């Protein structure tokens, strides 16, 4: 599986060569298999962290700072303790110490635990806090202005980071030599994760040992975090995440609130559940940073992209990491330069959010490419095709870079040949247009992933692995791979996940889960199965290697009649089960995906409202494990991309830096009637093994929609979200002289 993104860096560990079963032999893999936890979820039986109730459990609640920039002068929690039902109240800021400062709205100041949620709420409101309110920075413009107060220790703006390719390239000269230049400022907004289950957990002490049920996408990272924050042995911390309601990159540890829950639980001597409110969720649990780019890009008369020069900035609030790379590395510009600065404002720090940096970079780049095509009067698809990376030495595109194949496929599906060359000139206010964009993602996995498989004497099979299912279908994948390996139906296998006591598996981030767990589970299952074969072989008078597990039987490969049922085979174990471990090996998974998306939109030029009518997507993800859940990932990515394109926007009041829409009413999320027809083509690449798919489909949706709007209206919107205000402004500008 040596591709450019996954070279054979280390020799494979010794042991049998590991493979996936031949495609023709697969009973489950690659098929559309229903999620095994569907019945529990659809009946409301699945217990999420939010749902768990422990005996004697108290409800925790934070007192969050209403001020985005302030110093806590005093905290008095005693009034909270007088509220009936309150069992603990703690201050979380030390007015006399270095943590007295509040950097962003929603920062935790104090917390309480009480017998009811109502009492906890009354109690936090009884706490008396004195703040010295300081002038907060609400926008990048404010932070960057010369006379702004310097709110951050190393200044409001980071040092500039320069990227220049090739080294010592003369970007100005390349631009000057270009036949056409596009120059403009582009931007994307701050998006919040808005996981439906807010962050939080339940902490229960048993002496010095802590059990924590946490809504997390990383049970092992959560164990690490809790043990360090509470200064305990890692072995004394047990983290459980049976079901969790979405994370999208924001739930990679216990977070402050679960540490606080543990402290409250200790103080109160009872288990404490602390789940954030929706408002706190918007304010403090991360976001996708904004992006701004002043771009100058060129193309030669033949349609070869020549140069891309960008000054960029963005804000991840009170945290660093607002970087994004343009041009987005799909199209080959001759030379490129990017000068980037992070800008700090008094708002909740950013966190990884579904393809960090990518949707921003993709939007800016793909819009610039479209504008260059407009200058050339060239079909933007044609310009893209001409500037894809060169094929490899064998004349083939890399398996991770299949855009040359996917663009025409998707164009055909959406009917690109019907696209207006310029704006829709039909009568009536509704204009129709199409646009496209490409994406890429690496995926991969962790070679430290481990799993443990048991085959029980009654025929049961348990696969334990310390991964977690964040809605992607991980539990189903673990069961499928195990069942496939054992030749058993899915129902015969128990997939035990979401527990830090199970063998180590990585946090579910970076679309690496499938690449980490699939090989590991396969190997653990094979090891267990082979141990069973060793037990069974003597009674069949064959070598273990002659056996296969298929259709619920253990039988001789060349003579299927010779064998026994799985249960009969397991009975030979006596009373002691088989236990086998699995360690990740290279060769069963890989990294690198590519895809394209096309959007067909209607724009009402009298209201500026865009309705996405259709999205066509072609995406690869290596070997498809479960076709249904894989497709669902793509649907979900596109829909989140529609939210990013049109609706979602964290809006801070420019004068106070307080968020004005920390709810689900004015933080707009797409609903059923906002969803277009979505046409997905998943490209199966079985020879590559699985590659993660959570992130790539969300990258290019906004760019495709923005380009479609320009195609429909002839007016170019260079900022997200594509609100009626933005579209009408672009139309107005176009009428009075042009947006280009």
């Amino acid at each position, binding site marked *: 599986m040596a591709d450019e993104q996954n070279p054979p860096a280390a020799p494979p560990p010794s042991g049998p060569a590991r493979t996936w079963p031949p495609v023709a032999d697969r009973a489950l893999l690659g098929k559309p298999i229903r999620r095994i936890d569907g019945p529990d979820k659809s009946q409301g039986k699945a217990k999420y962290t939010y749902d768990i109730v422990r005996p004697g459990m108290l409800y925790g609640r934070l007192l969050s700072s209403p001020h985005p920039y302030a110093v806590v002068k005093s905290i008095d929690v005693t009034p909270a303790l007088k509220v009936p039902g309150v069992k603990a109240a703690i201050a979380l800021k030390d007015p006399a110490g270095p943590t007295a400062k509040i950097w962003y709205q929603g920062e935790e100041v104090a917390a309480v635990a009480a017998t009811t949620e109502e009492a906890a709420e009354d109690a936090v409101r009884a706490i008396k806090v004195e703040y010295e309110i300081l002038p907060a920075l609400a926008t990048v413009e404010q932070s960057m202005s010369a006379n702004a107060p310097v709110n951050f220790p190393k200044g409001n703006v980071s040092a500039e980071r320069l990227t220049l390719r090739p080294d010592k390239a003369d970007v100005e000269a390349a631009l000057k030599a270009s036949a056409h230049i596009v120059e403009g400022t582009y931007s994307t907004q701050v998006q919040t994760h808005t996981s439906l289950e807010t962050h939080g957990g339940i902490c229960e002490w048993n002496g010095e040992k802590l059990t924590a049920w946490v809504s997390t996408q990383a049970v092992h990272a959560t164990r690490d975090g809790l043990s360090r924050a509470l200064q305990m042995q890692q072995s004394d911390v047990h983290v459980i995440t049976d079901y969790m309601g979405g994370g999208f990159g924001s739930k990679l540890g216990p977070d402050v609130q679960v540490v606080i829950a543990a402290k409250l639980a200790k103080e109160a001597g009872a288990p404490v559940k602390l789940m954030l409110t929706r408002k706190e969720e918007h304010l403090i649990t991360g976001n996708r940073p904004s992006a701004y780019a002043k771009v100058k890009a060129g193309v030669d008369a033949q349609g070869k992209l020549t140069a891309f020069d960008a000054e960029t900035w963005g804000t991840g609030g009170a945290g660093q990491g607002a970087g994004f790379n343009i041009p987005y590395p799909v199209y080959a510009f001759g030379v490129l330069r990017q000068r980037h600065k992070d800008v700090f404002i008094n708002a909740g720090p950013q966190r990884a959010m579904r393809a960090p940096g990518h949707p921003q970079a993709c939007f800016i780049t793909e819009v610039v490419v479209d504008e260059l095509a407009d200058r050339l009067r060239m079909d933007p698809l044609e310009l893209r095709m001409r500037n894809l990376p060169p094929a490899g030495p064998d004349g083939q595109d890399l398996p991770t870079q299949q855009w040359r194949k996917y663009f025409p496929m998707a164009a055909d599906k959406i009917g690109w040949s019907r696209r207006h060359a310029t704006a829709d000139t039909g009568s009536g206010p509704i204009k129709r247009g199409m646009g496209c964009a490409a994406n890429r993602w690496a995926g991969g996995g962790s070679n430290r992933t481990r799993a443990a498989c048991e085959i029980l004497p009654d025929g049961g099979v348990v696969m334990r692995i310390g991964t977690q299912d964040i809605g992607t279908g991980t539990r189903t994948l673990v069961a499928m791979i195990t069942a496939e390996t054992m030749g058993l139906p899915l129902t015969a296998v128990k997939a035990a996940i979401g527990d830090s006591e199970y063998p180590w598996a990585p946090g579910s981030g970076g679309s690496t889960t499938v690449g980490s767990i699939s090989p590991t589970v396969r190997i653990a299952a094979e090891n267990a199965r082979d141990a069973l074969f060793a037990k069974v072989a003597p009674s069949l008078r064959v070598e273990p290697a002659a056996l296969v597990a298929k259709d619920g039987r253990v039988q001789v490969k060349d003579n299927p009649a010779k064998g026994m049922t799985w249960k009969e085979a397991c009975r030979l174990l006596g009373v002691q089960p088989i236990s086998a471990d699995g360690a990740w090996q290279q060769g069963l998974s890989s990294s690198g995906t590519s895809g394209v998306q096309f959007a067909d939109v209607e724009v009402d030029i009298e209201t500026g409202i865009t309705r996405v009518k259709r999205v066509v997507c072609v995406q690869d993800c290596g070997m498809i494990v479960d076709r249904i859940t894989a497709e669902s990932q793509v*649907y979900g990515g596109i829909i989140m991309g529609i939210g990013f394109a049109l609706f979602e926007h964290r809006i801070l009041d420019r004068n106070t830096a307080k968020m004005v829409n920390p709810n*689900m009413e004015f933080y707009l999320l797409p609903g059923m009637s906002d*969803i277009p027809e979505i046409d997905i083509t998943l490209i199966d690449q079985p020879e590559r093994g699985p590659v993660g798919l959570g992130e790539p489909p969300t990258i290019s949706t906004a760019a495709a929609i923005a380009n479609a709007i320009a195609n429909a209206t002839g007016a170019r919107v260079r900022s997200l979200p594509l609100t009626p205000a933005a579209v009408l402004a672009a139309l107005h500008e176009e009428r009075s002289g042009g947006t280009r």
Partner: protein
Amino acid sequence: MAPRKKDQPGFSRRTFLKTVGAGGVAAGVLGPKAAEGQAVKAVGPGAVPIQLNINGKVHRLEVEPRVTLLDAVRNRLNITGVKRVCDRGACGACTMIVDGETVYACSTLAIEMQGKMIRTVEGLAEGTVLHPVQQAFCEHDGLMCGFCTPGFVTATVALLEKNSKPTKEQARRALDGNICRCGTYARVLEAALDPKASGVRRG
């Protein structure tokens, strides 16, 4: 919609009825001064014993008037299929069916739900047999992380009980009150439009 009974079950008048002002309950047309001296029966703000009929079973509990139906059901009765997500009537994760109509349980007071037939996602399956809508959600993968699923299932059941053959547009409109962050809408819609989902079962 049937008018509600004046005296709802569950109020323990002896313990919790407070009479403010003088005089009894006057009858007759409201005249200029009729309101004066009117008896006002107030309960709370402390806990009040109430009864809720949920999925055909009557539960007795004590809650303050400020407790929502959602919180009463989740925190007092440990019926946790319905979720709290936005807590402001904007996402549908708390959808229940009350007297045949979907409601946002987060924006409904428990005390007002006495005497009503409340159905939650837990009341849909019959034993181990899934409700056809639940079955359709599983078959079409109309669920991912699953946190919105109980609300969506409930809203879909309410739709199909009124209109067993909705058009695509009708189904969309009926489900517009629910938000899914994972983005399973396409599959939820498939499930709602699956003829099998509208089955025959009626609550």
